[in-house]
């Protein structure tokens, strides 16, 4: 351990504004990098689920023309 107390650790020998602001930016960068694709995935499934539900309710409405029909793979 390089520091003897919490206060000494947070003070960083007087360099605390630099050290902690740099680490805040770094941690923020990691969090953004992690959350962006996770949220995109969740949004994708939510939107596509909605699309499918809309489509099936259109079909049960008595043969309304299907839009956005999935292509057979």
């Amino acid at each position, binding site marked *: *351990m*390089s*520091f003897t107390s919490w206060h000494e*650790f947070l003070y*960083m*020998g*007087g*360099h605390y504004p*630099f*050290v902690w*602001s*740099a*680490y805040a*930016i*770094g941690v923020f*960068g*990691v969090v*953004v*990098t*992690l959350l*962006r*694709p*996770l949220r*995109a*995935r969740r949004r*994708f*499934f939510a939107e*596509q*689920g909605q699309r*499918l*539900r809309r489509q099936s309710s259109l079909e049960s409405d008595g043969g309304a023309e299907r839009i*956005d029909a*999935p*292509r*057979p*793979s």
Partner: protein
Amino acid sequence: MGRLKTLWHRLGSPRWFYEISGPWAAGSLIVGLIGIAVGLVWGLAIAPPDYLQGNSFRIMYLHVPAAILSESCYILMGVAGAVLLIWRMKLADMVVAAAAPIGVVFCIVALLTGAIWGRPTWGTWWVWDARTTSMLVLLFLYFGVMALRQAVPREESAGRAAAILAVVGMVDIPIIKYSVDWWLTLHQTSTFKLTSAPSMPAEMYLPLLVSVLGFYTFFFGVLLFGVGNEVLMRERRTQWVTDLVRSRQS
């Protein structure tokens, strides 16, 4: 060689990639985040202070991995761009699309933490020296690749335009790498060399090594996940994605 060729052909199948990459992405993300946490805490609290810089040198444990990663990410993007241009592999385009937003974040982190570190160490937030300038050019290259993907309306042309910029922009990478040797800059030359021991004691470079490896593993995980997103988006009209969406609904 035969197996390698099969793998190459399979990489052309987005569905295969999506199915195989899921567990790898999750595993890499977890291992990478643990590595980053261990490396940063080790560097912040346990490594000894630098005899000249005091505690501000601890910014290194963040600055160096972020800078290395933003360069590696660009190389990967450039190689993927070349693969797209030569073999027209769809997956390569998805790699470019997924890598750019990750690389740009790490490039910004490297530039900002560098400025913050420069203030107590060099006495200035910013110098127009070879390394900081070439790193700023890298940031603009990332912006360029991302902007081209958005600006060109046809998806295929957008991918090709971005790929060309990604490939051409690769000239900046050796400039960043060797800037400290070619020109007189405030940055020091490489600490880690393949040919000799690091010019730093083990208590200082081991946490840095852990941090760098953690960041790389994390990047690998995010990239795989991001490419998975691209696969889903582009294949959203196919039967297998529709089935996947249905299975998530119930």
